[in-house]
């Protein structure tokens, strides 16, 4: 979430002060070097790259098909599962693995169960809104 007005939203991850590993969601023990007590909160995930994506033609309860599902490589290191923002038409060819992505915050899904649940999602960095 933004820490200052006007700043774009971010994810709250954790960075190991000993080995530099960054994780999301945050964890108290570093999964890389195994140290306890070295993980410090850090804002991450404003930008990343699309690692992989697919179109789900079937939706679990609370979601509406078709919808994109993706893994994003955040600039700070973590690779996270994410949905794709509603500005992207759910069609083949709209997304390309490796493309730059930016974070958005919007309802998790346009369904009665999830329309009031806000979530992070990602959209192409050079999206409709024009800013890269």
């Amino acid at each position, binding site marked *: 979430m933004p820490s200052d007005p006007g700043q774009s939203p971010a994810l709250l991850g954790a960075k190991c002060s000993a080995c530099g590993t960054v994780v999301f*969601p945050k964890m108290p023990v570093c999964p890389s070097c195994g140290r306890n007590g070295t993980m410090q909160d850090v804002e991450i995930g404003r930008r990343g790259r699309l690692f*992989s994506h*697919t179109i789900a033609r079937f939706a679990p*309860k*609370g979601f509406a098909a078709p919808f994109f*599902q*993706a893994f994003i490589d955040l600039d700070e290191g973590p690779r996270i599962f994410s*949905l794709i923002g509603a500005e992207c038409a759910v069609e083949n060819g709209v997304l390309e693995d490796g493309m730059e992505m930016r974070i958005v915050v919007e309802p*998790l899904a346009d369904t009665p169960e999830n329309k009031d649940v806000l979530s992070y999602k990602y959209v192409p960095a050079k999206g409709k809104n024009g800013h890269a």
Partner: protein
Amino acid sequence: MREVAIIGVGAHATGQFIEKLLKDIAYPAIWNALEDAGVQPTDINVAYVGNSLGGLLTGQEGVRGQVLLQHSGITGIPIINVENACASAATALRGAWLEVASGAADVALAVGAEKMFVGDSARSIAALSAVSELDLSQMGMQFTTSYAIHPKINLKARMEEYGWTIEDFAKPAVKNSANGALNPLAQHRRALTIEQVVQSRVVVDPITLYMCSSISDGAAAAVVCSLDAAKKFTSKKPIRIATCTLRSGVYRLPNDERLDSAETTAQAAYEEAGIGPDELEAIELHDAMAPAELMLYERLGLCDPGDGPKLIDDGVTTLSGRVPVNPSGGLCSRGHPVGATGLLQIAELVWQMRGEAGERQIEKRPRVTMAQNQGGLLLGQDSAVYCCTILKS
């Protein structure tokens, strides 16, 4: 550690049994195993009962093992409930094996049972999603997605990297459905063609409906005892458990180049059993999505990366091949009642090793076999549970 043998197995058919309760499905599997082993309930010293979704789907959140076994006339003994997602039953077998191996018990029972049909498939699917870490399932992640684009499997990337085609993905489903068509216990007994699999509805691109295991009810059980005591109960050939190797997922960072945990678990199992992949004569493996079988060939050391489709093309893993894989029909055809699957795999291998597998019997009875079972998904890019069991006759 004492040598441990499986002396009896039993199963309930997989499929939709809407009128039956979980304990009704477990009961015939348990008693088929007891009768097969020649043991009475009073001979059993300890039982491990695997089930994954019964809490959410039936409402019986606690003591499911005690409930199931009391219904089948087994009471008083230590009963341990095992929840380990789709590998619950393999984990139950491991508990029974170690009880006997350690000398703590002489005869132990392992049960796996699952009741997924509850009249509302959305509930069944939601329960299945709940065996993955909530951070993933609450975001809409499905098992199908994980096979399609998950970093460690990423079938879409394999299409580019290896040149695999959608037809290649269909090959395990075609092979296994031919086996399942011969299995009276199987849920789906129709031999499929490549065209039928490819042209079935897309679930998550590139995975189609007939590449997916489906909602299923079913159960299986095994009785184990020390190898020395086996002949006291049965004249049948005891099937030795060479190892039942259990591992959990590892938190993997994107730049982690260590081996996948399916691979490390298999390697550990080979080492513990003192055998290599070349010695296996039959395998039951976890093809929750059919194309996963192609990846698992690599992980289990059966072929070089990318050569999975060739193993099927060359007939190596068909019922008449050098190392038949999923003679039961596998998860997609035989069925995947999640908490029962690991022991359904074991029951199939025991039948094959004894020459009791009917129409789907492997012509040359396999003497060394492996069951590979896994389940759940963690945030750290691994499955939650991996189990490899190696059997020797």
